[in-house]
């Protein structure tokens, strides 16, 4: 699962919504009167409409030059491509780090298709499905002019997956590669001891897997396969001087404050089908005030909120009330599903009928509201999200025309469960996440209509999965019948989305994400079968089946497929929303001068 940015000062932001929305009218209105004003650039006339960048490239331009400015409320876990787990950073690091594979540069579903990046072509899989071979393009250089070697990719994977120091990224390669008890390059300086990857020559990388894994191309699209020369590696400090393979390279980096990128003259566009190199410079400011980022976007002083998580409540209120400003926004899906899980091990949710009762009784417009209404998410009915490869729309528990709940069916289900008058249960929520608490309250009110009385239990998000909802023992002991959570896939396929949260074998004594403790052999088998199916179409069909089975269990109830409202300043060119990230394709952007 990718991390999202916690909304800094969310509560304060809400308080300010009213006050600033009022004066916001002034700020926006200024654009109409004083045309020479610098502050009006962002709101200047543009023909683009609301959500245009979701389906096409807005302000297409190949004009080069200028400085593209990003801002971020917090700081990245690391700028090291091998040591980060933020979705936006996987998007952003592509500016200076090229993995073996990457996504097609196109809006819509087409963007989810992988294309070779450093590799010449997609991976070649052996007959037994356990060996994946990638051939490198020739002549790809680092920013210092030296050539990229296969061993550098091997080393990059070794350092990011097999060391104690680089802790921030995912460890899929450690999980799937057949590497024995390899200690990692910091303890074992001899890279030949790493048997999980072989490099028979400088242009061939061979991955050795423990078991077949049909979606391996998705894994190598992770920035962890971007090459790192062993001599240049300084461990956690490597983030300060990342060696570039992309169109930009590091000019300066002050940890926690600012990152400046400049053109990498050793990047050859002929080898790269997905990136552009339009701005002269790219500047990123970290630790910026969220409310202020929105105001600066609207004023055109910066171009992108790097996190891609959308506007703060105040900024959102400002733009939706002004049609002109609203035309400068896009409202894409994020990879996140916001849902409730019902524990199959806690009474009375061990009975599927009681779970169904919840599905029918929930007023999903009420649980949608805390996310920001339709702009914050579309009401969900499945486990997989619309931007996942293999997603099929269906609704097993239609609960009224407006999703406001079907109380008759809910009562039938309750009767079938042997609880015709309802029951009492506990609802666990991350107490420091305002929106989730509001969802819990809405759910509580919904279910009270059929006699299900929920008691809301709040736990801190920091230890949520280690100590509370992610610890089955704790869940059982405290009778946590319903838990409110969210999940976003690391890669947009059914497997990427589902494996951690619905596989019965993924249930862990702590840090568990299958909080419903669903352990259906049929689901487990389908997951195994799917990941070993080489044919993508057949595979995606299997993911849809898994989704169907999960929903049949009624233990999973989606509130919304999350959406964000992101602002698109008019001086930002070549903008489109990439479906894999649910945010703008950062490698395409240009800036009007």
């Amino acid at each position, binding site marked *: *699962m990718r991390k999202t940015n916690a909304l800094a000062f969310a509560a304060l932001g809400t308080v*300010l919504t009213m006050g600033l929305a009022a004066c916001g009218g002034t*700020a926006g209105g200024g654009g109409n009167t004083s045309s020479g004003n610098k502050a009006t650039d962002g709101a200047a006339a543009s023909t683009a409409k609301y959500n245009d960048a979701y389906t096409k490239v807005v302000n297409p331009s190949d004009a080069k030059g200028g400085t593209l400015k990003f801002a971020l409320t917090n700081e990245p*876990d690391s700028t090291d491509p091998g040591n980060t787990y933020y979705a936006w950073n996987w998007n952003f690091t592509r500016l200076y780090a090229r993995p073996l594979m990457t996504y097609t540069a196109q809006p819509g579903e087409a963007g989810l298709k992988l294309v070779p990046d450093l590799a010449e072509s997609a991976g070649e899989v052996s007959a037994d499905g356990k060996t994946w071979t990638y051939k490198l393009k020739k002549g790809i250089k680092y920013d210092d002019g030296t050539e990229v070697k296969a061993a550098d990719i091997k080393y990059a994977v070794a350092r990011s997956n097999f060391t104690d120091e680089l*802790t921030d990224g995912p460890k899929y390669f450690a999980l799937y590669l057949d590497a024995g008890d390899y200690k990692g390059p910091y303890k074992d300086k001899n890279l030949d001891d790493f048997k999980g990857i072989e490099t028979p020559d400088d242009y061939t990388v061979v991955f050795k897997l423990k078991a077949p894994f049909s979606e391996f191309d998705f894994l190598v699209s992770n920035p962890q396969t971007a090459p790192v020369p062993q001599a240049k590696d300084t461990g956690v400090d490597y983030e300060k001087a990342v060696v570039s393979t992309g169109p930009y390279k590091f000019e300066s980096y002050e940890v926690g404050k600012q990152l400046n990128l400049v053109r990498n003259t050793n990047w050859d566009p002929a080898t790269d089908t997905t990136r552009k190199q339009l701005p002269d410079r790219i500047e990123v*400011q970290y630790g910026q005030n969220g409310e202020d980022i929105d105001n600066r976007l609207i004023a055109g002083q910066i171009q992108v909120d790097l996190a891609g998580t959308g506007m703060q409540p105040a900024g959102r209120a400002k733009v939706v009330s002004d049609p002109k400003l609203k035309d400068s926004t896009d409202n894409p899906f994020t990879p996140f599903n916001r849902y409730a899980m019902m524990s199959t091990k806690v009474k009375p949710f061990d009975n599927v009928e009681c779970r169904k009762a919840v599905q029918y009784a929930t007023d999903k417009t009420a649980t949608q509201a805390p996310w920001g209404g339709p702009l914050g998410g579309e009401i969900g009915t499945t486990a997989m999200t619309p931007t996942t490869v293999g997603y099929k729309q269906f609704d097993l528990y239609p609960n009224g025309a407006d999703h406001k709940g079907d109380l008759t069916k809910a009562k039938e289900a309750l009767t079938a469960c042997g609880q015709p008058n309802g029951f009492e249960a506990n609802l666990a929520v991350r107490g420091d996440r305002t929106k989730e608490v509001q969802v819990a309250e809405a759910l509580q009110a919904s279910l009270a209509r059929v006699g299900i009385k929920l008691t809301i239990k709040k736990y801190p998000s920091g230890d949520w999965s280690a*100590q509370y909802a992610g610890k089955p023992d704790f869940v059982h002991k405290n009778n946590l019948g319903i838990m409110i959570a969210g999940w976003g896939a690391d890669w947009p396929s059914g497997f990427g989305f589902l494996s951690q949260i619905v596989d019965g074998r993924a249930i862990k004594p702590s840090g568990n994400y299958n909080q419903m403790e669903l352990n259906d052999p049929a689901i487990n088998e389908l997951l195994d079968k799917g990941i070993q199916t080489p044919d993508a179409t057949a595979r995606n069909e299997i993911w849809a089946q898994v989704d169907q089975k999960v929903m049949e269990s009624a233990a999973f109830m989606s509130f919304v497929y999350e959406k964000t409202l992101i602002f698109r300043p008019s001086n930002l060119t070549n903008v489109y929303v990439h479906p894999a990230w649910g945010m703008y394709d950062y490698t395409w952007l240009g800036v009007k001068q």
Partner: protein
Amino acid sequence: MPGSDPPGHSGRTIVVAFIVRRVIAAVLMLAVVSMATFAIFFLIPRALGQTPEGMASRYVGRDATPEAIQGAVKRLHLDDPLLVQYGRFAQGIVAGQDYSLGPKKAECPAPCFGFSFNNNQPVWPTLLDRLPATLSLAIGAAVLWLVTGVSIGVVSALRRGSVLDRAAMTVALAGVSLPIYFTGLLSLSVFAYTLGIFPGGGSYTPITENPVMWFQALVLPWITLAFLYAALYARLTRAGMLETMGEDYIRTARAKGLRERTVVTKHALRATLTPILTIFGLDLGLLLGGAVLTESTFSIQGIGKLVIDAIRGNDLPVVLGVTLFAAFFIVLANLIVDILYAVVDPRVRLS
């Protein structure tokens, strides 16, 4: 006869002895502060049943394997007894320590507050790096609020009950009541994004790089921060001035035939300002430990921004570092205030 020993007698010795005593007390206090902070972040979670692994899991990636967590426990020494952990921290401050960055060890020379758990940067250089921004903000704002606050307070007191007095005190009430977050964003919205007079948020530039930009970027933060304090100081000054103007020695001064201006500036203001200077010293000391809200609002990467981020991220070494840093400034401010007080007010003895 009481007080018959003349002043100035061995005055220097007294001051030196006083400073030495206070410095020793300050060091002890800093030790206590560090222990208390340490306890809040380590002892209390442990007492509540948190395991070293549980703590380590906060500082590794989301998808950490048990091995990675164990690695973090070892690397951050979370499994050592607490006393040993504290000892290592304390030793680091005095003697420095080593830290594993990966292929090689990094040295952290004394004073070493350790390395951030979250971004692996050594804490002390980070603090020094963030200090100029906070200094610029705090000192600039302090000058502004002292001058405006005291002037308004004096004028208000002398024209007590006038329209001017009432207007000033109403604005002052607003200044005290309105949160910086609100006034800050409002001022940015008006002066930066609508009128375009000043640069927007996040435009702080070190004075060494570009003094003009430094100044322009700080005008709004200065005013915002100073507004709050100026309001406070105007009220304090007004109240103090009204009290002082009623003192017998003011009547004496007038009875000598002094001009009213001299009475106000030489006799009244001096007595009014003395307690205000004390508060001023402490306020400034406190601010040097980070102007959290102003820095956050204007995206100034100072000490305050650093610590609020560190607290949010459970970044213990940074929190400990900033706490000690801030405590140091407060202790220093106290010391200076005490010495100044003794200089200003002859009745006060350094003892």
